[in-house]
């Protein structure tokens, strides 16, 4: 039977098109139930006697849902208890149309055998197809189709069918047709065996159901927003909440030359936007423009309603001397980017209450109101919560509980939290990925050795941090007869094992990078490769990709050669061991000679680099000593930098640059390179100002100028000043990015930090996917491997770069978060006074860096009653109290401890010890630990 589906649509060009689709109805679509002996199905999915105890419907029954249930109550549907659900094609198609993630989730459920979810293709069934009637909206038609299918099932089977829908009109009509229909909450409530399901119920209150006065202005409908954007009245941008102040946010406007960042202040103007949303904003008139306040505001626990206006008034205080920024307000939401958030429950004052507030780990997300009856069990647990809606009359967004991760403070839980929060794919490798691995025992085949250069006779060694198992680089150096030096950098040949297009390749491309947490490593490639076959372990034959230079004694490149090779590392050293060998005058073996040669050349290279304007930046890096039993950190040290660190680094840089030049020559359109854009001068303003306050002039015109002035910036009374300045300079920098050479003009290829015109990543293919691509490009350019279409497609490379940049950033954040977590664990049992330095001065707080732990935190200058003994000098950014002045870079002593007043939410607290302010600073709890900072600032 044939019907046609007819609809009209408007094309992009503006013409109107009538589209006719043929639609065939069939009589051989089976019901999918085991109880049915009419249908000729082979493997029925729906169980013969569905067991789901419901108070409302005691007999065995199947469930039919409508589209909104699938869209919004997915967490309920995913629960293993919910079985035997009929998902109609009408519903599935509407879900696909409305939300891709929801569609993927429901498709996943449909593949789980134990869930007994069945897709009934009602749109093609001759008895359940309905045609749209005049005056009927598309939604009404779909609802009618759902009811039609439900009635059909009811007649077709002996088992009861329950229609679950939150749409009242639909329910009424269903009842008229003799269908049993419930709302989701009615139905879930009736499941007496699983009361915990109630928590997962998404709270959806439409704006119509008013309770209490509206606290926020209404959002404009999408059509109006689009018109406004077209006419230029509104602007579209992504909403970025401030970390420090919950009443402030920035919107980075898409595609506007005039304003790229617009400030939003006050809860009214923020208007229910959540970090990450794409919003439409309207600029306020220039007289209302404001500037970011230097206040640090967090949503306090017992905040009363009346409190907010006060805070907003504080925000609005006029500050005429500071240049104002474009300020706007949110008028509508274009796309919500809500995800699932990790966090904890805020303990409720009333024990029995089911309404609770959820505090997300991410500081930029508001608290979320959820309903749960398991508050007792969830206390002290990390949980995941999903936002459902944010009605106008609610102060907080409404959400529902998804699942619990584990106890707060438990390391496994906390690691899970930070992996989830940073969107790091960390599931075990799938079977299809593992099946791509070579078979063990693996050995180098004849074929391999024929096509590769045998470098096993060379005295190659690797130098890495202690405990490193994924060794991806090794070096050698030997004197040549003509007085020149041959230097080789040998990189693990990962692309030999990861062939393009395989499952393992796709997985690695998705993960993008290996993520290092303090006590855990999330590999990009399975361990067999990362720690064994690819890792250039000592005394084992390994495949490598080698860069061989002939260098003059002055470290000038005379010749460079790239080749696939077989190497056998003589020894794997740590930085410290390598340093010892270099320093040990008694050792004269080839390894020692090789290392000394490398070290000498590296120093020359570094000098050249610095002369051409490379920056030496600093960021505090720390190492934790982990107790082998409890896996708790027992000591923290900042990482020491030795000559050998920089030795290895220099040769890696050299290799990367040589490779970048080679692949760019061969593939001018599709080489994967790395660039570091020059920061705009405005970025430097804060540090120029800060340096001026200490009487120093910074010249930031070029990288070279900056490097020179950083070197000259020394203060006699503050030895740490230079490092501080470098730390601050690092924060002014732009992110280094991967990019595809065909997408940018050559002038933009520059790497600002390294002061080289072209750069790429070649040397760590085990832990970075970009390097794998670069390996492939290089292999093709030297004729060692075949090319494949995606490799030379610049659009594909561009898309890949985008993902890699994102993953890298997230991996960095996750790593930092892991350090933070361990710092917190470390202070769990300690209260210590430490030396610190002021990084920024805020209106009500000092931003202090404690170099020993690489720890940053706020010292709040206000007491509980919001009074501060200090007065804030905005111009100079100095806090004054009596004759004590605290400004940027100043040395302070702070007491570090854990605030345990809230068992669930322990946080690190810093208190001022020195300079002493009577009535404000806390007494010293002991001398600062004797160990002084050692940091290479050269």
């Amino acid at each position, binding site marked *: 039977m044939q019907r*046609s589906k*007819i*609809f*009209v*649509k*408007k094309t992009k060009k*503006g*013409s*109107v098109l*009538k*589209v*006719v689709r043929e639609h065939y109805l069939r009589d051989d679509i089976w019901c999918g139930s085991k109880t049915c002996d009419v249908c000729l199905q082979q493997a029925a999915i729906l169980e013969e006697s569905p067991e789901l105890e419901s108070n409302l419907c005691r007999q065995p029954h199947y469930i039919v849902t409508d589209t909104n249930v699938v869209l919004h109550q997915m967490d309920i549907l995913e629960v293993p208890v919910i079985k035997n659900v009929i998902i109609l094609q009408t519903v599935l198609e509407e879900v696909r149309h409305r939300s891709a993630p929801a569609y993927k989730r429901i498709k996943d459920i449909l593949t789980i055998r134990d869930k007994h979810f069945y897709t009934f293709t009602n749109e093609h069934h001759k008895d359940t197809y309905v*045609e*749209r*009637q*005049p*005056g*009927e*909206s*598309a939604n009404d038609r779909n609802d009618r189709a759902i009811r039609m299918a439900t009635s059909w099932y009811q007649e077709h089977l002996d088992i009861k069918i329950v229609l679950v829908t939150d749409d009242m009109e639909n329910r009424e009509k269903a009842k008229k047709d003799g269908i049993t229909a419930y709302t989701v909450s009615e139905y879930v409530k009736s499941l007496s065996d699983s009361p915990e399901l109630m928590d997962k119920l998404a709270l959806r209150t439409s704006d119509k159901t008013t309770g209490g006065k509206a606290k926020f202005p209404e959002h404009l409908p999408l*059509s109006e927003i689009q*018109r*406004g954007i*077209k*006419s230029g*009245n509104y602007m579209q941008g992504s909403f970025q909440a401030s970390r420090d102040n919950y009443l402030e946010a920035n919107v980075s406007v898409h595609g506007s030359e005039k304003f790229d960042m617009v400030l939003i202040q006050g809860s009214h103007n923020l208007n229910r936007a959540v970090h990450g949303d794409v919003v439409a904003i309207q600029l306020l008139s220039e007289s209302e423009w404001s500037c970011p306040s230097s206040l640090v505001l967090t949503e306090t626990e017992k905040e009363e309603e009346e409190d907010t206006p006060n805070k907003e008034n504080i925000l609005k205080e006029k500050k005429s001397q500071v240049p104002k920024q474009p300020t706007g307000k949110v008028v509508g939401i274009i796309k919500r980017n809500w995800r699932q958030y990790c966090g904890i429950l805020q303990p409720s004052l009333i024990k029995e209450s089911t309404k609770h507030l959820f505090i997300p780990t991410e500081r930029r997300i508001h608290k979320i109101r959820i309903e749960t009856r398991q508050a007792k069990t969830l206390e002290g647990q990390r949980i995941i919560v999903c936002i459902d809606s944010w009605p106008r009359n609610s102060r907080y967004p409404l959400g529902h509980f998804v699942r619990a991760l584990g106890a707060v403070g438990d390391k496994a839980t906390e690691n899970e939290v930070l992996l989830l929060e940073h969107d790091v794919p960390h599931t075990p490798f799938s079977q299809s990925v593992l099946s791509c691995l070579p078979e063990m025992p693996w050995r180098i085949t004849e074929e391999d050795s024929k096509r590769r250069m045998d470098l096993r006779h060379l005295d190659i060694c690797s130098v890495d941090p202690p405990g490193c198992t994924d060794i991806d680089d090794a070096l050698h150096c030997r004197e040549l007869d003509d007085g020149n030096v041959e230097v080789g950098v040998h990189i693990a040949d990962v692309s030999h094992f990861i062939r393009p297009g395989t499952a393992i390749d796709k997985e690695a491309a998705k993960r993008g990078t290996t993520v290092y947490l303090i006590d855990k490593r999330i590999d990009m490639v399975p361990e067999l490769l990362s720690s064994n076959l690819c890792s250039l372990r000592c005394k084992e034959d390994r495949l490598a990709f080698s860069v061989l230079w002939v260098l003059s004694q002055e470290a000038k490149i005379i010749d460079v050669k790239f080749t696939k090779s077989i190497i056998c590392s003589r020894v794997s050293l740590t930085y410290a061991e390598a340093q010892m060998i270099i320093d040990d005058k008694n050792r004269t073996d080839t390894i020692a000679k090789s290392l000394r040669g490398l070290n000498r050349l590296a120093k020359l290279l570094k000098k050249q680099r610095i002369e051409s304007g490379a920056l030496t930046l600093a960021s505090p890096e720390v190492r934790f000593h982990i107790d082998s039993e409890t896996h708790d950190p027992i000591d923290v040290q900042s990482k020491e930098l030795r000559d050998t660190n920089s030795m290895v680094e220099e040769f890696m840089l050299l290799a990367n640059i040589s490779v970048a030049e080679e692949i760019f020559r061969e593939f001018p359109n599709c080489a994967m390179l790395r660039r570091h854009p020059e920061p705009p001068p405005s970025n430097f303003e804060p540090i120029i100002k800060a340096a001026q306050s200490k009487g120093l002039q910074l010249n930031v015109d070029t990288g070279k100028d900056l490097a020179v002035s950083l070197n000259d910036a020394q203060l006699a009374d503050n030895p740490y000043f230079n490092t501080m300045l470098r730390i601050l300079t690092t924060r002014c920098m732009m992110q280094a990015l991967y990019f595809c050479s065909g997408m940018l003009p050559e002038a933009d290829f520059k790497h600002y930090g390294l002061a080289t015109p072209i750069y790429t990543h070649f040397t760590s293919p085990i832990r970075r996917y970009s390097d794998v691509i670069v390996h492939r490009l290089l292999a093709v350019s030297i004729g060692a491997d075949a090319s494949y279409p995606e490799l030379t497609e610049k659009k594909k490379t561009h898309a890949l770069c985008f993902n890699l940049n994102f993953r890298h950033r997230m991996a960095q954040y996750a790593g930092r978060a892991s350090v933070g977590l361990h710092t917190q664990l470390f202070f769990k049992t300690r209260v210590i006074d430490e030396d610190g330095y002021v990084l920024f001065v805020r209106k009500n707080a000092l931003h202090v860096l404690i170099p020993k732990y690489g720890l940053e935190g706020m010292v709040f200058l206000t007491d509980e009653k919001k009074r501060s003994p200090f007065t804030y000098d905005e111009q100079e950014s100095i806090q004054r109290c009596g004759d004590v002045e605290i400004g940027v870079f100043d040395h302070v002593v702070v007491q570090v401890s854990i605030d345990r007043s809230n068992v669930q939410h322990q946080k690190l607290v810093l208190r001022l010890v020195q300079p002493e302010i009577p009535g404000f600073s806390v007494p010293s709890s002991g001398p600062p630990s004797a160990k002084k900072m050692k940091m290479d600032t050269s």
Partner: protein
Amino acid sequence: MAEVLLSEAERTFIVHGIQDNIRADGRSCEDYRHMELETDVVSNTSGSARIRLANTDILVGVKAELAIPASDRPDEGRIEFFVDCSANATPKFEGRGGEEFATEISNILSRAYDNQGSLNLKDLCVIPKQQCWVLYVDVMVLECGGNVFDVVSFAVKAALHNTRIPNITVHADDNGRTELELSDDPYDCKRVDVHKTPSIVTVSKIGHFHVVDASMEEEACCLARLMLGITEQSTVTAIKKEGSGSLDPESIYDMMETGKRVGQAVNATLYQKLQEEEKLGPNKRKAGFLG
């Protein structure tokens, strides 16, 4: 047109029959043959109709498209005719053989419709000077079996009656730029009023008398014919004389009178039948091309 070979005796029989107001197939001089009419036969047009009269088979499709109004009529839409004479209709149409005939048909249709009274073209305007609907009327001559002009005009009328133009709402923003929004309900559309549209009635002069709806044989006996565009209100919107013979003013007058009379009746009947068909609703049995 298709050639029919007639003997002198046959010719005399036909001419004499007409003198007595009785034609070879039993009709009187002002009678039409039976017609079969079906609308909505091509689903991807805005409106369509097919008419079969004797061996003449005509399919008409109307497509409504948005375009910019003509500069001399900024607040009106347009109607455009295009005729395709399929080589299936008669071997003479093979190659470019049908082109001249096709142009002739489309010319007379354009002339018949080119007046303020028959179609309210202002209705087709969306935004004056910017957007209007253009109705592209595509006529397919599937088979030629005499009296093609009349049948084409009936089919055009039926197709226009069947035409549904999607409703469009116009939004204007502050800067005066406009945006069109299409209704997502396929039933939300406007119609074309065909109450006053003309049909063509061809009056053929055979001997001293004239007939309407001449058969192939009668056409072979006819030396001069008058094509009249006539509405249900008996308004003559177009007139064209065809054939090698000449007509004296008196017989032109007579023929026009006949045309008006017949035109009025045939228009009324067609309109009534169209209404009847529409009342059957979407569940009517479709004959299509297989029936």
